[in-house]
């Protein structure tokens, strides 16, 4: 399988590491023999139609430099989408950073890839949150595979569980904790820490971004909810259709009050008719009352009732492993 990779940050590098370490196993067990024809990062790109050496890519990235500086194949400067038309390959993997304002440059990249009949994997929530109905329609129209397991739940296969394991049943509603950072903050606040202190801790531990507003204002949860609603429930919604509320207004006292009644407060994303993200007071023994940076999602289906999946949210390695899952699936569909 011939691949071009966009984005070489934590997830991108984790993926390359995994592909290197698991090379033999992936080949023997799944017939997956990926050949990286190109890598694009923010400052340049490297292309070799014979396949790039993964070790070399990793070495230059470890030096904190752009792949554009790679010997022989590297080129500094912006990657023009037209270049895609001149390379024959099978799969484009987009691991560029999330842009929640207009989804670019990933949105244009994915659209172009579809029109060139390329399969696409993305770990980027931006284009999906903003234009998922469009992307699903274009993938179908061009008869290509489009997978995005890494966008929701990281290594926890939430999307696959609902789509495959609950096949034949009718999922009526989805409720869940889709953001690890806010769940960590709420858990720490329940122990008595102030919001700002809990947030600082989350940043130190590496859950939260330097600018954590996407997490604590509920935007990240809402983006994941959009993806679940489109993919699992077939609802054609985008981020604009979700009513979003974050956790900035939650005080330690609120959590103490809830605790006295055997309850707790969680940032719950739900879709049941209306799609919304808001802090809800739920019973301590509820399936969704998970602590720390865990994610938990309940699928409420017509016949099987409520099924809950709990797992760790995103992280570089976890997300990269979800990309490999997607690669194996696309490999299967290809032949």
């Amino acid at each position, binding site marked *: 399988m011939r691949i071009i990779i966009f984005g070489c940050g934590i997830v991108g590098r984790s993926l390359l590491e995994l592909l290197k370490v698991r090379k033999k196993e992936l080949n023997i067990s799944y017939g997956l023999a990926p050949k990286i024809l190109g890598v694009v990062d923010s400052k340049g790109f490297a292309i070799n139609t014979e396949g790039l050496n993964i070790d070399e890519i990793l070495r230059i990235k470890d030096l904190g430099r752009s792949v554009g500086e790679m010997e022989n194949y590297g080129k500094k400067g912006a990657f023009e989408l037209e270049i895609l038309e001149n390379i024959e390959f099978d799969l484009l993997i987009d691991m560029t950073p999330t842009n929640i304002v207009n989804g670019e440059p990933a949105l244009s990249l994915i*659209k172009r890839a*579809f*029109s060139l009949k390329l399969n696409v994997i993305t770990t980027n929530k931006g284009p999906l949150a903003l*234009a998922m*109905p*469009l992307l*699903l*329609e*274009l993938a179908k*129209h*061009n008869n290509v595979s489009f997978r995005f397991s890494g966008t929701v739940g990281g290594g926890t296969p939430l999307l696959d569980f609902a789509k495959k394991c609950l096949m034949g049943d009718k999922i009526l509603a989805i409720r869940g904790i889709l953001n690890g950072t806010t769940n960590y903050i709420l858990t720490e606040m329940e122990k008595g820490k102030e919001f700002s202190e809990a947030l600082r801790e989350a940043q130190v531990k590496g859950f939260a971004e330097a600018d954590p507003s996407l997490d604590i204002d509920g935007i990240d949860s809402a983006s994941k909810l959009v993806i679940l609603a489109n993919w699992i429930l077939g609802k*054609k919604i*985008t981020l604009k259709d979700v009513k979003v509320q974050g956790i900035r207004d939650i005080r330690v006292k609120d959590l103490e009050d809830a605790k006295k009644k055997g309850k707790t407060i969680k940032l719950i994303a739900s879709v049941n008719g209306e799609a919304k993200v808001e802090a809800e007071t739920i019973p301590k023994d509820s399936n969704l009352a998970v602590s720390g940076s865990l994610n938990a999602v309940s699928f409420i289906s017509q016949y099987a009732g409520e099924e809950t999946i709990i797992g760790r949210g995103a992280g570089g390695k976890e997300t990269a492993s979800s990309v490999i899952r997607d690669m194996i699936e696309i490999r299967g569909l290809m032949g």
Partner: protein
Amino acid sequence: MKFGGSSLADGSKISHVADLIKSYSKNSIVVVVSAMGEVTDRLLEASEKAERGDQEYVKKFSVYIREIHLAACKNSIRNKDLLEETSKRIEALCDELYRVLTGVSLLKELTPKSKDYILSFGERLSSIILGGALRDRGLKVKVLTGGEAGIVTDSNFGEANPLTEATFYQVKERIEALISEGIIPVITGYIAEDQYGKITTLGRGGSDLTATLIAASLKSNEVWIWTDVEGLMVADPKIIPEAKVLPKISYEEATEMVMFGAKGMHPRALEPAMVHKIPILIKNTFNPEAKGTLICDETSINKDKPVKMVALIKDVGMISLIGGSMVGARGTAAQAFTTLAKQGINIMMISQSVSESDISIVIKRDSLSKAVNALELSMLGKGIVRDISYENDVYVLAIVGAGIKYIPGVAARVLNALAKEKINVYMISAGSSSNSLSVVIKEKDGYLAVKKVYEEFNLGDI
């Protein structure tokens, strides 16, 4: 607001349209235009002549196209600079059209893709002129092709299907921004783009479909279709001189009426509005005071009156397949329909009695002899169909109304009214959605039948 070709037939009409738009400019408006008058038909003709290598025709045609559009500029734009600027753009487009047609005439080859490209000139020209006329009246305007506005289709040239989700997203992104800046987008109807940026045309429903797609993308309050009639009529005024315009009908009723030849919208164009429950108002450009016909959701329709409209479909013929051996013989109907499909003949109406000894079919009259011939060749003498007869002096009497399904006895009242006048009924069929009832009668009884149904259901009283 969408303006049809007849509303934009010449410079003075374009002036009138520009004034009309200005009078509504306190609202947020998006304008969708057809090509001027019959320009699309002329372009089609020219592309076919070019394919046959007729370079003389291409030359003459190019002069003609340039003249009518430049004249329209002159008669609709008063400001000198604006007129010059607009005329220059028209000239440039006409030059391009001439080159394209010449290319076709040299190659003697016309692909569906190049045909769509040639047809697109009609709307591209008219939109530039109307854009100029609106600017001349002090309005802020942006002229866009359907593709530039965000309408994206598959690559089925000649009758492209919109990719609706992609269209909704792109139109919203591009057009909302213009509207919020107080700009009136003037968008070419009928033409769009595929995902590679190649120009496609929407085929049936054309510009109306452009309008409803844009309305659905923007969640508009209403779509106004400006045309040269007052709206949809209760009955043909040639038969019932006092027939009135229907004030309000449902999407489903409108779909039926269009099928019955009323001058309205193609069902394909109704679809996006129907799904997103956006009301459509059909209005007369040349009598804007008149109320027109509102096409809207069934829930807001008065159901007390079972019948809304009666129409006579004239260009039809009826074929009957008869034979005792048809009883229980499986596949007879399938064979008949397949035979007709292979001849490219569309079946308008079907009925078979429970005894299975006869099947009647109504088709367009001009394909009657072709159809009878094909059916005779494929079905006679095989021991199942004994006889194939046909009638070329029949009409279909169509009765439309959403209330037919709620109020029992409509069919009985129709048949009774006809029986009183000794009008024989040859075939009858009610759609499964029960928004209409179709009856086959003799040509000579046609007008009388319409009058009697009109009287029976008090259609004058709206």
